[in-house]
């Protein structure tokens, strides 16, 4: 019956889904962009304080986390290519690898922040109140920006795990993969932000 066929047709607009995700990414870029602007202004006002403060950060830990994020960005892109080719096993392995790398990133972050906390350096601490204005601003921005970035990592992991379940349930397949595509875009955004955070916070001193 032709009536039956009409009911089977499910409306789908991949382009619109992708455009919607990109519009959201634009708001994220401007959110972090605003924070980078605040950083730049205060850096220009307190160059010496920012220089001294950035020396407190471990370039080694920062570098490890940069490598982790770059590799995870590739693994999620591999996962999308694998789904498009119909290789669901590889796609799932790559998603799990991405999540494992995200976990490693957060463990690093835990030790990094933990060391700062141990030295009495955390938002609102007594030590922070005693610091020079420039140092205070640097560490406030450091905790806020890397903290907001870490929150994005957690959200990204949740999105990737949902994609994993959808591949498992054959909801994400070779000719319908928009959920994974958008989750991957979000993950690349997290990587993109870190690409700018790393040199500004850890390296330029």
């Amino acid at each position, binding site marked *: 019956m032709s009536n039956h066929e009409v009911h089977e047709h499910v409306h789908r607009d*991949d*382009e619109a889904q*992708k*455009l919607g995700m*990109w519009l959201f990414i*634009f708001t994220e*870029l*401007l959110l972090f*962009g605003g924070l980078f*602007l605040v950083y*730049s*202004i205060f850096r*220009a006002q307190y160059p010496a304080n920012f220089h001294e403060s950035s020396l407190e950060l471990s*370039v080694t830990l920062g*570098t490890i986390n*940069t*490598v982790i994020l*770059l*590799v995870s*960005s*590739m693994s999620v*892109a*591999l996962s*999308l*290519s694998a789904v*498009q*080719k119909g290789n669901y096993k590889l796609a799932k392995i790559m998603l799990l690898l991405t999540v494992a790398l995200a976990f490693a990133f957060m463990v690093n972050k835990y030790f990094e922040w933990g060391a700062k906390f141990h030295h009495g350096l955390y938002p609102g601490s007594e030590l922070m109140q005693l610091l020079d204005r420039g140092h205070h601003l640097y560490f406030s921005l450091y905790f806020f920006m890397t903290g907001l970035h870490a929150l994005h990592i957690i959200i990204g992991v949740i999105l990737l795990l949902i994609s994993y379940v959808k591949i498992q349930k054959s909801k994400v397949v070779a000719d319908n993969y928009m959920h994974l595509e958008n989750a991957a*875009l979000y993950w*690349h955004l997290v*990587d*993109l932000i870190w*690409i*700018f955070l*790393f*040199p*500004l916070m850890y*390296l*330029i*001193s």
Partner: protein
Amino acid sequence: MSEHTPHITPYRTLGIILLILLTLTFVTIEITSIHLGAFTVTAALLIAGIKGFIVLTYFMHLKHESLLLKILVAMVFVLFAIIVLITFIDYAFR
């Protein structure tokens, strides 16, 4: 080019892109470890910009997206550049 024939990025391409990004990361670390004054900041931001462009083009596969999307993304960065410029002009001349 239509939505029925999506571009699939080859595994090999993704691997090469990762190697380029890792190389640029270590170049940034090397450049910032030698003291070049104001040039250090410029170099580090320039390399970060190149890395960002590569991520957007290949990992986020903008290369194979519609012209509309490419223009929209470019406009966001233009908008941000204008905001930065205006803010710095404000701080420089107040």
